[in-house]
Structure formats: structure tokens, C-alpha cells
């Protein structure tokens, strides 16, 4: 009869490979975390000296003159992200509801798929699109264009999160509501508002965090500015564009300000990230900044 005659003990080689792979995997973890520590550390250490009330509220000054600040950039970022949210929340929530509640329709499948594709899209191209659409026609860079560009980035995120959190709501809730004679539109809205509230909030927070960190889409839509914004239809400053311009300027005083602005930005993003984690607790696959 055939016999395999297997050895009684596990070969040494197999044990070595097992230990080796454990070490390799550990090294991978270290390699992934070290850059994070370095970056956050550098941003904090190099950016902290730049922070001051003046820094946060003043307008930029020429390179050698002290007392310059990033006030307009802070204002600009918030304005444009706010604009973006204004546009993307209704559309994103609407699309998200559609994906979840009418998930069987062909439109829903196609649109949902496109939506997922848009989530990872190069933002440079989206900015270019808004440039052609709005800046060329209005003949000027504006906060409005910047806000629209950001909304193109924010909408897919909000749509995705909304749809996913709605899909978690058990069908029995909808059925119970409709069985009581409540019209579909009321049922949908009620479910969205009450049970899906966390999901909506998460989506908005994630989208806002993403938009605040974007630079490329603002390059040719809002451009930049050294004064506080007086109108939505003029070039507008933003934190990210300031960081970019200052970083490549080569002037040490501006570079320090770039670190300061980066620190501010990181702090805002960390706060937003924390909020997201708090709102949805342990459901990790939704609380992802990038997906």
C-alpha cells in the first residue's frame, strides 16, 4: 500500500520561514509608521514656532518684512470648503439615497459605479474641468469656481457614505413604515434623517477633511490672493495653495510660514478625523479618509 512516510517533526526550514515572515511583517509595520511619525513630528516642530495670533489673522507681507500671516488663506479655505459642502451635500445625499433605496435600477448601478470611480480620480483633472467650465466663461478666478471644484471631490464621498449607511438600515423598518400607509417619500426621508444621521455626518466630515487638504483643483480655479476675500467672484487664497507657493519660494521666512500653515491644516484634519471616529465608533471600513 502507498505510504507517504511523513516525518514526525516539522522541518527546521518551515519553522525558520515562519519566524522570518513574522519578522518581515513586523518590519513592514515599522516602515509604515516611521514616516508618519517623522512627518507629524517635523510639522509640529517646524510649524509651532510660526504660530501666533498675528500669524493666523494677518495678511501676507513681503518676504523680508515680519508680521506676515495667513489670515486670508484660512478664510479662503473655509469659504471654499463651505461652498463645496453647500453644493455637494444635497447632491451627494440625494445620489446616496438613490443608490440605496432604488438599488435595483440600472441607473443606480451605473451611477453608483461611476461614483466609486470618481472617488479616486486625479483631482488635477477635475480642477481643469471647472477651469474650462467656469473660469473661462466668467473670465476670472474665483472662490465660486474653487468651491465648485471642491464639490466635485466631495460629492462622491458623501454619496458613498450615505448609501452605505442607509444600506445598513434593516428592510423591515421600511416595510413597517409603508405598511402603516406612510408614503414612500416620507418613509425614505424619515429613515434617512433618523437612522442614517450618523452616516450622513460621517460622510460630510470625511468630505470636508478631504477637501481641506486639496491643492491641485484650486490651482486654476481660485488661484490665490493676498487679501481677505470680499467677494466670491474674485481670486481667493487657501491654506494649501499658500503652503505650496511658500514651499517652493525658497525664502526661509516663507518656508517657516509654510510649516506653520501645514501645522494648522494638520490640526484641523486630525480634529475632523477624531470627530469621524467618535461618530461612528468601531465600524472601521466607513471611517476611512481615502476611500
Amino acid at each position: 500500500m502507498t505510504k507517504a512516510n511523513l516525518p514526525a517533526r516539522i522541518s527546521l526550514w518551515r519553522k525558520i520561514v515562519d519566524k522570518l515572515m513574522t519578522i518581515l511583517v513586523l518590519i513592514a509595520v515599522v516602515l509604515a509608521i516611521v514616516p508618519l511619525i517623522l512627518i507629524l513630528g517635523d510639522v509640529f516642530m517646524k510649524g509651532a514656532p510660526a504660530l501666533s495670533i498675528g500669524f493666523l489673522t494677518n495678511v501676507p507681507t513681503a518676504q523680508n518684512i515680519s508680521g506676515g500671516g495667513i489670515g486670508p488663506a484660512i478664510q479662503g479655505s473655509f469659504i471654499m470648503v463651505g461652498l463645496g459642502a453647500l453644493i455637494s451635500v444635497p447632491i451627494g445625499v440625494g445620489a446616496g439615497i438613490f443608490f440605496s433605496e432604488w438599488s435595483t435600477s440600472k441607473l443606480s448601478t451605473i451611477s453608483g459605479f461611476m461614483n466609486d470611480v470618481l472617488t479616486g480620480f486625479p483631482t488635477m483633472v477635475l480642477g481643469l474641468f471647472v477651469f474650462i467650465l467656469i473660469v473661462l466663461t466668467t473670465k476670472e478666478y474665483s472662490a465660486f469656481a474653487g468651491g465648485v471644484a471642491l464639490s466635485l471631490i466631495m460629492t462622491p464621498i458623501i454619496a458613498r457614505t450615505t448609501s452605505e449607511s442607509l444600506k445598513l438600515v434593516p428592510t423591515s423598518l421600511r416595510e413597517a413604515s409603508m405598511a402603516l400607509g406612510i408614503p414612500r417619500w416620507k418613509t425614505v426621508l424619515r429613515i434617512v434623517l433618523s437612522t442614517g444621521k450618523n452616516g450622513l455626518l460621517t460622510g460630510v466630515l470625511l468630505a470636508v477633511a478631504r477637501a481641506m487638504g486639496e491643492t491641485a483643483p484650486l490651482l486654476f480655479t481660485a488661484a490665490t490672493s493676498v487679501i481677505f476675500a470680499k467677494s466670491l467672484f474674485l481670486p481667493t487664497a487657501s491654506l494649501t495653495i499658500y503652503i505650496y507657493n511658500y514651499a517652493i519660494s525658497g525664502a526661509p521666512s516663507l518656508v517657516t510660514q509654510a510649516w506653520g500653515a501645514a501645522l494648522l491644516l494638520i490640526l484641523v484634519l486630525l480634529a475632523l478625523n477624531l470627530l469621524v471616529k467618535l461618530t461612528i465608533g468601531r465600524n472601521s471600513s466607513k471611517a476611512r479618509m481615502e476611500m
Partner: protein
Amino acid sequence: MLGGALKISKHKSLDSPGAKIATKDLKANFGKMQVLKGITLRFPENKVTAIMGPSGCGKTTLIRCLNRIHELTPNAKVEGEVLLDGVNIYSPQVDPVAIRRRIGMVFQKANPFPTMSIFDNAVAGLKLAGVRNSETLNSMAEKSLRMAFLWDEVKDDLKKSGTNLSGGQQQRLCIARALAVEPEVILMDEPCSALDPIATAKIEESIVALKKEFTIIIVTHNMQQAARVSDFTAFMYLGQLIEFDTTSEVFENPKSELTEKYITGKFG
């Protein structure tokens, strides 16, 4: 106290050195919950022993302790001894990886590896152990598939994926997979619970044939199955061993009131 003191019948073959695998005051936990409260049991060699009992009695945990799979669950702990041929498999000198090859397992729901062909599934364990010779692999695959009563149905389709088989065939494939590494003991955790009567019959047929070469321990909640297939039966309740004897004795002459109640269907 549960319905009377523990009654373990001193059957002849239990005292003889022919107990292939045995437990000694085996305790097992999931976090704070103690699932096994001290089980001492001897499984006779080359016989089929059935472990029965209502849900939650610990029978699955017991066999998972026998091949050291239980400890893989997070927060699981094991105390006591499990003796294979007299040697405690939980002693620090024993490598769990080596032990698991000697004690094979068939799971409740058939779990063939979906990315492997039928052939690769069957010889998966052999390849792990370092067998490279294709002649050996081919003949071992045929041998184990025959022992699992699956060879005739798949011999022309060995390269096809294992997931295209029916539930019963998949389970027999899993049995073949376990057999190929030439274990000494085979543990089966309710192997037929998800299968139809015909598939079940085939597997029960193979179990009876297999005991010539292996010691088989089968967890089942199906009393008729235990009666059909096993030589010995252990009855468990809430983590304790209530009764152990030859199957005919347990069913016809239960010594514990609890056993009798279970057998007559007074509780399940």
C-alpha cells in the same frame, strides 16, 4: 448537582492500554466562560466514539482541544492534559503544528480550499509536509479519495475546482484531504449536519470503513447517527461528562437519569 453523580462505566477496553487518545481533567475557557469543566475520557483505538449532548454542552470545544485548534481562538484557554499514545500534547516540548498532522479534523460545514483543484485540495497537507514527488502525490491522492468514497466520482475531473462539487462531495473531499496526511486520529464535528440523507449515508459508510486504520471521534447531535455508526458513546451536559460506555449500553441501559432524559427526547 446534576441528576445524580457522574457515572462512567468501567468498560473493559478503557482500562487496557488501547486508548489511542485520552483527556485528563481537561478544562477549556472562552474568556471568562468555562466551557469544559474537567473532562477525563479515554477514546479506544480503532473504534468510533460518538460525543453527544444538547447545544452548549461543550462537545465541539472538546474535540477542538484534542487537536489544539481551540487555542487559536482569541481569548481561549486550555488546562489539563490530552494524551496521544500516552504523551501529553499540551506539554511545552510538543510542537502543535506536528501534532495537528497526526490528529485530523473534518468540520461541520465542508470547507475545501476554493482556489485549489480537487487534486490540490486532497494533497494540500502532503505538500505542506514537503512531499514533492509527483508519483507519491498522485497515488496518495487516489488512495485518500478512495478511502473517502469519492474517487469514482471525481477521478476524471481532478484538475477542476473543488467548489463545483455538491455539498456531500465537498465534505468527502475534506475527509480525503484529512486522510492524505496519514493521521492517527480523525475528529469529525457534526460532518453530516448540512447534508441530505443520501450524502449522509455515504459518509457514514466511509466512517465505518475507516475505523480499521484510524481512531475516529465524531460529534453528533443526531442520536440515530450515533447508534448507526459508533462503537462507544460519550454523553456530555453543560461542560461535564455524564456518561461513557459502549453505544448499545448507553442507548439501551443508560446509567444516568440525564442521559435517559436526553435519549428519550425529554430535552434537546
